[in-house]
């Protein structure tokens, strides 16, 4: 029901017109990789190879690919916990991402963060945060630093901060957007609006359910784009990033997509109406982009099948790597608590005495 009521913008790119075939093919490869990775993550969770919470990008692949096609290597990316696809397309190997999910020392966060806390300083993937809204103030601060560190211009870096629709209701969102608007920071806040925060629809959670309009309170542009249209997402994100780099104009970009499954892998989503589930399945961006490319003659059915197969093989390699990697060494438990050795650092294991008799 809720999904039906959601206003989706007219797709700006109905066809694949004008886009080089190689680029389109490349985008399909990326979407296929994210899809394969997430399906396998779900399977690995069921086999208890992955623990804790595990949130997937299933249904959001066009959004993930479009956003990651727009962001530049010099930009900083902050995200919530639904972060696997972004990490993969930021250039991290599926091996290191899967290893993190498996809690292995070869994982991107050394096995310490898990699914929700992927981090890679080299590619400027600055997390992966499990507390709703936790990423928004630090992302804003990174933009503040960029403003001080370099001049505005087409080559300047910017920050992209991803957050969910439900996350727009927490104080940190409003406080941060106000700061960014006030101080003119080079940041793009992207609301990945998949229609649900756990079991709660946008309409039940936000007094202004047209979330991009919230930008008005902070005098920044608010833009809404169809998240199932990879090219539209890319173009809107590029434009927003351009404003951030060149004019220090923060932007709020709302990307409309669907969450194909439950909130996390263990959520059967029984609260969801069958109508809503049907709409989500019908607008699944992976098969629809695939079909579009075949119709446009960019891919043959055989090409597309080969791409899907290659993605699956790639993910299988990642699983083998993750499986064979060692767990972190217990002797390293306290390794990263502080930057440097500090006098009297508490480093007792449970049950060890804190004092030797003097």
């Amino acid at each position, binding site marked *: 029901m809720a999904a039906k009521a959601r206003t989706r913008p007219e797709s700006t790119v109905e066809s694949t017109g004008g886009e080089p075939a190689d680029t389109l093919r490349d985008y399909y490869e990326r979407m296929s990789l994210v899809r394969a990775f997430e399906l396998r993550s779900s399977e690995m969770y069921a086999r208890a190879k992955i623990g804790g919470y595990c949130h997937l990008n299933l249904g959001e692949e066009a959004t993930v690919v479009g956003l990651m096609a727009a962001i530049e290597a010099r930009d900083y990316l902050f995200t919530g916990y639904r972060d696997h696809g972004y990490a993969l397309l930021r250039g991290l190997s599926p091996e290191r991402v899967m290893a993190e999910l498996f809690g292995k020392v070869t994982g991107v966060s050394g096995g310490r963060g898990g699914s929700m806390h992927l981090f890679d300083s080299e590619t400027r993937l600055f997390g992966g945060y499990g507390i709703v809204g936790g990423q928004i103030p630090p992302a804003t601060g990174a933009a503040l630093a960029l403003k001080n560190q370099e001049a505005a211009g087409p080559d300047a870096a910017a920050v992209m901060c991803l957050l969910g629709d439900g996350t727009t209701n927490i104080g940190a969102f409003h406080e941060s957007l106000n700061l960014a608007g006030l101080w003119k920071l080079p940041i793009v806040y992207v609301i990945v609006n998949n229609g649900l925060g756990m079991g709660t629809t946008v309409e039940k959670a936000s007094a202004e359910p047209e979330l991009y309009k919230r930008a008005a309170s902070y005098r920044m542009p608010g833009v809404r784009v169809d998240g199932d249209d990879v090219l539209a997402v890319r173009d809107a994100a590029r434009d927003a990033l351009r404003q951030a780099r060149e004019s220090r104009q923060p932007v709020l970009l709302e990307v409309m997509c669907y969450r194909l499954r439950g909130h996390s892998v263990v959520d059967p989503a029984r609260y969801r109406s069958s109508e809503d589930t049907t709409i989500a399945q019908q607008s699944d961006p992976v098969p629809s982009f695939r079909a579009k490319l075949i119709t446009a003659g960019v891919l043959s059915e055989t090409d597309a099948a080969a791409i899907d197969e290659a993605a699956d093989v790639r993910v299988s390699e990642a699983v083998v790597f993750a499986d064979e990697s060692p767990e*972190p060494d217990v002797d390293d438990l306290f390794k990263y608590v502080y930057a440097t050795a500090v006098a009297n650092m508490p480093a007792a294991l449970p049950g060890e005495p804190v004092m030797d008799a003097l």
Partner: protein
Amino acid sequence: MTEIVSTEVATTRTITYRQALNETLRAELEHDDKVFLIGEEIGIFEGSYKITAGLLEDFGPDRVLDAPIAEEGFVGAALGAAMVGMRPVVEIMTINFSLIAIDQIVNHAAKMRSMFAGQVSIPLVIRMPGGGGQQLAATHSQNLEVWYAHIPGLKVVAPSTPADAKALLTAAIRDDDPVIFLENLSLYSAKGEVPDGEQIAEIGKAAVVKTGTDLTIVSYSRGTTTALEVARQLEAEGLSIEVVDLRSLRPLDRDTICASVKKTGHAVVFEDDWLSYGIGAEISATIGEGVFDFLDAPVRRVAAAEVPLPYAKSLEKAALPSAADLAKVVREVLNISSTPNDN
């Protein structure tokens, strides 16, 4: 052993901690129309841990209010409703997220009665689970009870059994002061006998949940479950262990703790939280002040390693206190070498 102020019946049923909470919320919604529930995902989703299952359906959206993700906002809103005569019961999804609401809890809810010279009552309950051990990583595995136990004006309870979950939740909801009601992720499916009918515990009282003569283990919440397991295991080896379940962290029942240690002469505190400045530190100091002359050995604490809890199973397991750690320390305090078959 549990202190019960009023009791009507003798029949009991074996139910889970989860079910005990659910039934108590239902009973209190029926008992007093000023009671209402508020929190994220408690209605349509039936609660992240299904504590509120069925309640929206039966009591409607005015009594079971789904809130957006806005902990500071809805905890503060519950506080305001309490100020003008309602009896809100807030669910915060886990204690970790309560840090976003801590200003409303610590700077406001805890202060109002005193600061306004008794003119206002805050009959507010904040329920939330803590606990690690489920690979939820550093931000989602904390206990933090000591943050609240430190604050005058709050009452803090932490039931370890389904029966106490019922009796303490009823007491908390009927209390005229803000009560922090601490649950634990790993207790929700634990089963226990629960007396039928209205049960109201006295907040501020600990319970001796197992008697013994050689050593006292003091614990609370999930820790009590582990303490009992270790006590029974050591009993098979001829040791007589007494277990004190705190039940209330603020106020703290110092008399019950000291009376037990006076008898046994040995004490170990077992807690899931980090060691420095923890509940164990308070218990240890209390024993030092109260029954120093009766101690035959220093009080020891078994607590979590002081590290943001890692996701990886190997590290998580090493960082959290286990039954084996507790058994080892009990033996050390009693100066007994461990048996070869011990892990």
